[in-house]
Each structure stands twice: as C-alpha cells, then as structure tokens.
C-alpha cells in the first residue's frame, strides 16, 4: 500500500540483520503470549483473548488477498463458515473428533477456493469484491436451507472441543492453543512474503502488467494466494467455535468479512502483523466503551472513518508518522 510494505519485505536470509530481527520478533511474541496467558485470570478475558486470536487469524487470511494481491475478499466469510460448520457437522452428525472436522473444513475450503477462484479471479476491483460477496450470500442461503447443517437454528451442544490432550472448553488452554497457532501462521506468512511466491504477489499488487511482462503468471499466482487464504480462514472459523458455542448461517454473512476488513485496515495492510493489531483493537476496545449500545456503534464507526481519512495505510502508518515526527522534532531541538 504505502512505502511501509517495502520495509516489511526485508531481504530475509541475504543479510544477517534480517533473520536476527525476525528472531527477536518471535521471542517477543512468545513472551507476550505467556504474559497474557498466565496474567489474565478472568474466564471472560481469557476466552475473549482466544477469540481475538481466532479473529486475527481470519483477518490475516483476508489480508493475504487485500494486502497481498490488492483485492477485497468480501466473500471470505464463506470459508470462515465452512471452517465452523465442518467440525460441528462431524461432531454432531457423524460423531467424529473435532480435530478431524477442522482438517476436513480446511480441505473443503481449499477445494471451494480453487473452484470459485477459477471463476472470480478473472474479475478485479469492485467486480471481484461484489461477486465474492454474492458467493457468501449463496452459501448462506444454502446452509440455511439444508437439513444436516441444522437449518436456521444451526448446530450446537458439542460434546468435545479439544485438540489432542488440550481441552478447548478450558479458557486458559483455549487461549494458548489459538495464540500458538496464530504465531505459527504468522511465521508461515513471513516466510511466504520473503519467498518467490510472496514476491510475485507483491509485484502483481503493484503492477499486474509489469509483473506479467517479467514472466509472472498473474492468474495462477493470484489463484494460489486465494487457495492459500481459504484454509487459514477455515482454521479461524474452527478456532472461534469454542467461544461462540454454536454455528449459525450468520457465520458466513458478509458482515464477518467486513469486521475483518475493518481490523486489517485499522492495523495496516502493509505490515505483516497489522491485522493482528487491528483485531485486538476491534474486539477489545469496544468492551471498554460502556455507554449506550447505539452510541457505541456511532462512536466506533465515526472513529473508523476518521482513521481511514487521516491514515489510509491504517494505524500502523499513523504510528510510523508519529515516530518520524518525534525524530525530526528531537533533531531540530539539538
């Protein structure tokens, strides 16, 4: 989006500093996870923190398309819903374990993305955004009308939500599992960004024609990005299940994608962990604004408009600008 994306694209591996910087970041992140996981005592905040990690994962999958390829995936909530429905159907209808359901969800999401991407990725800009919204609309109606997905009531009452020995109904474990998965996906995405595939996406985002003239198969790389983002969105859907306790057609609604878009744009699309910052702001801040609900929505929406007007690159750009301003003030005083 802005010059921030080039800093984020440090040449890992070629320079010593590159991998050292990343190593510090990982240690920092692990420390943060331990601090929050052990520090928080209340079940509400632990569960909300775990849900925020799940939501951040979904925001990361949205940013693969938004920051990565420059397209607005309004229909990404369909994959989120697939990720939520797959384990629910496996547990309630077939008595299979939660972990199996999560994997099935990711596989179905990837397959669906290949089919749908093949169709929608020929479009771009507003056309792609609105048609992918349409896809999630059709998916929502389908799930609404099918019997084994529980119709309008949805699926609920899950006997066991656990990953191996880790029981996700226990808040602290739930937080550690989701935060560690989020960290692993972040590391994966960092590697992707600095791989041949990641560079191809960045070149396509900046100029499709120039990338094509340098031998990049634009359609195939965009499809690979779309098929990569789908299972991550599905994984996020599965990880949000222990929090919501129920899967309803609304999990596929475009409103979920827009929530994630807001989080990504607040955090900043250029920065790899921008969506994580945005998700924290998006789910945690409203908990503190405790005046009338409608006033809260009004204030929060106007805040988003203000942020987007002042810093289209998101808060990340604002922080950097503030940092730069501080630096030049200190210099001018010297």
């Amino acid at each position, binding site marked *: 989006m802005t010059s921030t994306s080039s800093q984020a694209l440090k040449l890992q591996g*070629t320079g010593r500093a590159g991998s050292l910087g990343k190593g510090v970041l990982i240690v920092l992140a692990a420390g943060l996870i331990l601090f929050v996981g052990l520090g928080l005592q209340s079940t509400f905040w632990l569960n909300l923190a775990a849900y925020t990690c799940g939501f951040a994962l979904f925001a990361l999958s949205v940013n693969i398309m938004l920051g990565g390829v420059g397209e607005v995936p309004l229909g990404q909530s369909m994959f989120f819903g697939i990720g939520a429905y797959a384990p629910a159907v496996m547990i309630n209808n077939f008595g299979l374990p939660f972990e199996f359901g999560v994997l099935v969800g990711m596989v179905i999401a990837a397959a669906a993305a290949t089919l749908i991407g093949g169709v929608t990725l020929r479009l771009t800009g507003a056309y792609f955004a609105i048609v992918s919204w349409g896809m999630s609309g059709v998916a929502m109606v389908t799930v609404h009308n099918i019997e084994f997905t529980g119709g309008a009531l949805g699926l609920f009452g899950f006997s066991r939500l656990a990953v191996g020995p880790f029981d996700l109904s226990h808040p602290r474990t739930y937080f550690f599992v989701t935060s560690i998965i989020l960290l692993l996906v972040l590391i994966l995405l960092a590697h992707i960004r*600095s791989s041949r595939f990641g560079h191809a996406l960045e070149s396509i985002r900046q100029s499709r*024609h120039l990338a094509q003239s*340098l031998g990049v*198969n634009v359609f195939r790389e965009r499809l690979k990005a779309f098929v990569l983002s789908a299972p991550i969105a599905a994984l996020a859907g599965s990880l949000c299940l222990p929090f919501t306790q129920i899967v309803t057609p609304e999990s596929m609604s475009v409103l979920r994608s827009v929530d994630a878009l807001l989080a990504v744009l607040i955090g900043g699309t250029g920065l790899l962990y921008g969506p994580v910052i945005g998700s924290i702001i998006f789910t945690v801040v409203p908990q503190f604004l405790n005046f009338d609900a409608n006033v809260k929505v009004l204030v929060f929406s106007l805040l988003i408009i203000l942020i987007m007007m002042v810093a289209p690159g998101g808060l990340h750009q604002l922080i950097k600008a503030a940092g730069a301003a501080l630096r030049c003030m200190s210099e001018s005083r010297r």
Partner: protein
Amino acid sequence: MSALPNIVTATAVEKHYGGVAALKRVDIRIPEGSVYGLIGPNGAGKSTMFDILCGITKPTAGTVKVLGMDVAALPAHTVASKGVGRTFQRTAMFSESTVEENLLFASFSATRHNLFHRILRSRVWRADMDAFREKSADVLAICGLSEHRHQLASALPYGTQRRLAVALTLMTDPKIIFLDEPVAGMNETETADFIALMRRISVGRTIVIVEHDMAAIGALCDEVTVMVDGRAIVTDTPHNALKHPEVVRAYLGAEDE
C-alpha cells in the same frame, strides 16, 4: 547482416479496432543480434505493432514468430519467461519498493524455490539467493545503478528510473528486448547515458526500439522500418530510410515543388 536467421518474423499482420484498421498487412523481419528501430509519425500504428510483436496484444490476422514461438497463441507471461523482455512507457518499475526489491521481483522466472524450500532454507533456496545476488550485482553495474541499490524506486530521478526498467528486463536473461519509447522525456545527458547503456547490452542480444527521437534511432539502430498510416513503407538503414520520398512526405507534409 542479413545472412543471420531472423529472430522475429511478422507476416501479413492486421489489427482492427471496431471499424478502424490500425494495421494493414504489415510484414517485418528482424535479424538476430541487430538493433532494430520502428519509427513513424503518431497514429502510424507503431505502438500497436510493438505490442503485437511482444505478445501483449493479439493481432486480428497474420502470424508473428519471435524466437520460434507463435507469440499470438501463447499467454503473455509465457512469452516473457521464454526470453522476450519488454519495457513500458508509463509503468516502468515497482514504485513502492527499493531498487533491489524491484530486481528481486524481476528474477521470478529465473528462480525455482517453492515455499518449503524457503522455510527449510534448503539448498535450492540458497542457490537461488546466491544466483540472484551475483546477477543483480552484474545488472546494477551494467546499468550504473549500484549506488542506488537500497533506494526507493520512486525516489530515483527520471533517467535513472528508465535505466532501472532496462535492468528489470535484463534480470530475465532476455534474448530480445523490446523498448517502448525509452528516451522519451529525457534530457541530453540522460539520453547519452541511455544510448551508452544500449550499446553495452546489445552485445549478443537483439533490441527492438519504438522511438520518436531520430538522434537516438540514428545512433543506435542498424536497420529501421518506417510505418505510416498502418503500413510499413520502407525498411533500410536509418540514413537511407529517412531520405525515402514517401517518408519525407509523411513526416514533413507535402514537399512544395
């Protein structure tokens, strides 16, 4: 010169936009290793022909063979990855990234590592990175961009940006490079630098230039084709071609006898 096999053969190429015939049965032969110019007044169909030759636009009729490939049938990125380099007039580079990152993007078809190689830092990935470091150093040196390596492309002066565009095509080891009005908008020193660059990179390569600047054409091209009103009128050395009566009339309007 003509003994060498032709690297580009376009036969009876036509292109219609709606009713308008932009190109009328154009034939072009470009011998390997030559520096070839495509000139003509505005609206002569140069740019259309240029786009067809490098596979970006598909002709309405006729065949185009570049490096033995039927360019019209293949997708643009395949043509590009098989040794056909090209620069654009307007979007010459990836403006949000540094010069080094621009070259990294351009090395896409030359590298082979996939995601797992990258994660495991495997041999394949390290080989790609070493090859890239070596190649990028050479290309930067040739194009005189070494000291700009870590600068943002958008911060470079115009002339340097044009040289970066050439550097990008060089990263794909092209056997033939198409240059779309490369010296347009350059001052004298920048043009002189650019011509020197062209001379350096034309060794062992074929170069096709679409250009208005007759000085650059004269200095660089072994052979030119002059196009007027969608037809190729003459193909000769720059000096002779410009003396051709029809060319003079097209450029300078009717000669008052």
